[in-house]
């Protein structure tokens, strides 16, 4: 019976190790997603600012867009449209990344729970083993 428990112990420990490495991978992915979120936030701010400035312009201000080394004349309305489209795109990206991050966090949490359970199981088994060994030793001495 103790040989079986030892196998069970090793099996559990191996599974915990695997779950921990999966956890680490998810952790790294989550870090990258957070960085992406930061970048998206900055892009959002900058585009909001450009849109606000474009709306402050009067008809006497000429708008240009930099295309390579040249400035190309643009209609203000066109420029505003372009920036608004970009803002929509960014918002979509932000929502997608937020959902991915939340999913990862949930997955990581369930790994933590599962690992904790297994660690408690292993601890309980180890305690049972210790008690059994103590009883056996006592039994041998008394005889």
């Amino acid at each position, binding site marked *: 019976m103790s040989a079986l428990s030892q196998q069970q112990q090793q099996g559990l420990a191996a599974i915990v190790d695997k779950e921990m490495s999966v956890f680490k991978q998810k952790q790294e992915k989550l870090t990258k997603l957070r960085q992406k979120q930061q970048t998206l936030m900055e892009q959002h701010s*900058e*585009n909001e*600012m*450009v849109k606000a*400035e*474009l709306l402050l*312009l009067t008809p*006497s*201000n*000429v*708008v*240009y*867009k*930099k295309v390579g080394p040249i*400035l190309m004349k*643009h209609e203000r309305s066109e*420029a505003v449209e372009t*920036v608004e489209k*970009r803002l929509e795109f960014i918002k979509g990206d932000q929502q997608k990344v937020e959902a991915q991050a939340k999913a990862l966090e949930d997955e990581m949490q369930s790994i933590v729970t599962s690992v904790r359970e297994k660690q408690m199981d292993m601890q309980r088994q180890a305690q049972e083993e210790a008690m059994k060994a103590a009883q056996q030793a006592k039994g041998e001495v008394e005889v």
Partner: protein
Amino acid sequence: NMSDLDSLSLEQLNQMKQQEEAKLQNITTNYQQLKSAQARFISSRSTLENMTPSFENSEIMVPLTQSLYVPGVAKDVKTVTVELGTGFYATKTVPEAVKFLQRKIDLVGKNADGLMQVVGATRKNIEAIVMTMQGKMDEIRSRREAAMGAAN
């Protein structure tokens, strides 16, 4: 969060301290970048404020490359072109451009001030962690001394 500090071990506290110190480092760098951007805007604004109508037809040096200039004449001192961001530019009159730069200066200044506050909060966090660590180390030391005293 701060009341949980006592429940953490010395190693955990040390790790937390290092994380906060790294954060402080990053924020300080960002703050300096914002301040230097603000300085550039301020310098542009004062350049523009010097572009009065009397500047027209003054002799200027026009850069062809970073180290090559050619002499020129200031023709149009009433209109400038400014960068709005994300590759968009717009012409503005000098007063409009000065106002535009002022908006930038104020915005960047506000962001920098916000960062300063985070610097203060982070420094306080680090202080609290260090104090908790000190308390625990003192506790360990006095326990050790008591044990040694009992052994004797």
